[in-house]
């Protein structure tokens, strides 16, 4: 199974967290790393998008969004009925899993590049697009029948929140400037990308360590949910990617997008929009189980699934 050394930094972080080392990445550095990561991903996507006839993307994009919306819609009843969770918690967790994780996606891209597997660069656009329906669905589910929602504040939070803004801004800049115009920025945004991702994973490990410790209290249900949801979502993604005629790399990335759960944009939005939800549950599951599952086991499995399906012809 393919293995990407950058995940070792996650393990180092987890170790440091578990032994209660005084190691910590200062908050401002962490913020700088995420600004960098989001901009860099956006730029990469924009450059690739510029080489592509946009109209051809319309139908696949709508399909990818529609199928993606199934994830929170199906998760909600499972959480509510099987998991016996409150409406607020079920909705919030569903939104986290419908949403996507930029770092998981980056690790998948790193693996594809290490293995020299091509992929459709415009997949990055879905990092932006998939976020929005998931969060909206989450809020609707939480509020159904109960009082008013500050839709204005929520829309603002989602659209102009820093994650989407930097991703989309990077996309536009990359698109406008093109590969040639971006070249002097390459060394910062492309060549350093993986090193910065390593530092990011170190911090993620530190934080995940705290979450892992708290997992026992979540019970068997949430742990199973946090492993099965990505697997099932990835199967959806693999099938859809194959049907849409994506390459092996693109199929695997779509599976990864569906399988990943957000722990940056979604937690902030849900804390404001669904305050009754307990953030420890959703972040604990997304960051403490699903994230490590995805980078260690999930991503190699999704690659294998894509290769397997494509071996039958596209």
């Amino acid at each position, binding site marked *: 199974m393919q293995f990407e050394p950058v995940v070792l930094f996650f393990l180092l972080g987890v170790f440091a967290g578990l032994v209660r080392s005084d190691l910590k990445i200062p908050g401002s550095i962490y913020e700088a790393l995420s600004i960098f990561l989001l901009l860099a991903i956006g730029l990469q996507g924009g450059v690739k998008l510029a080489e592509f006839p946009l109209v051809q993307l319309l139908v696949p994009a709508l399909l990818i969004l529609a199928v993606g919306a199934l994830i929170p819609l199906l998760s909600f009843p499972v959480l509510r009925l099987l998991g016996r969770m409150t409406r607020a918690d079920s909705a919030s967790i569903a939104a986290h899993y419908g949403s996507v994780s930029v770092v998981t996606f980056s690790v998948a891209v790193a693996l594809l590049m290490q293995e020299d597997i091509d992929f459709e660069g415009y997949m990055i656009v879905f990092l932006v697009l998939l976020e929005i329906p998931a969060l909206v669905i989450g809020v609707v589910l939480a509020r159904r029948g109960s009082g008013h929602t500050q839709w204005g504040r929520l829309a603002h939070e989602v659209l102009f929140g820093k994650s989407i803004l930097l991703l989309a801004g990077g996309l536009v800049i990359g698109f406008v400037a093109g590969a040639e115009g971006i070249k002097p920025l390459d060394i910062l945004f492309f060549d350093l990308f993986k090193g910065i991702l390593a530092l990011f994973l170190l911090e993620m490990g530190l*934080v995940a360590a705290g979450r892992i410790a708290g997992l026992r209290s979540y019970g068997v249900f949430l742990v199973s949910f946090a492993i099965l949801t990505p697997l099932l979502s990835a199967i959806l993604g693999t099938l859809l990617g194959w049907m849409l005629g994506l390459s092996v790399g693109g199929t695997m990335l779509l599976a990864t997008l569906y399988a990943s759960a957000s722990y940056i944009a979604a937690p902030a939005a849900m804390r404001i929009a669904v305050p009754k939800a307990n953030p420890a549950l959703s972040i604990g599951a997304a*960051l403490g189980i699903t994230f490590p599952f995805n980078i260690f086991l999930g991503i190699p499995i999704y690659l294998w699934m894509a290769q397997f399906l494509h071996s039958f012809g596209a």
Partner: protein
Amino acid sequence: MTSQPMTLLVIISETVLEDILIDEIMDLGAKGYTITEARGRGTHGTRAGRWTQGGNIRIEVVGNAELCQRIVQRLQSAYEQDYGLLMYTAPVELQN
């Protein structure tokens, strides 16, 4: 010297509420506020100020007793149930 008795209200709450709390405080008539970054532990667990876990902010408002009372009541009814929130008041002499 124009020292005058005033009330100091200290509000400790979640960073994610910063914009919202500021809007409330100014809407209720405060003339100003001061914020410092904080972290801490309370009934809602540890808020170590690391991302995904969130940190706290510490807001100071100097105003008359009645204003501080209004702010306390508003924040209590709207946020105490769902968010980490601690408030205390103390008499101070404003030196301006």
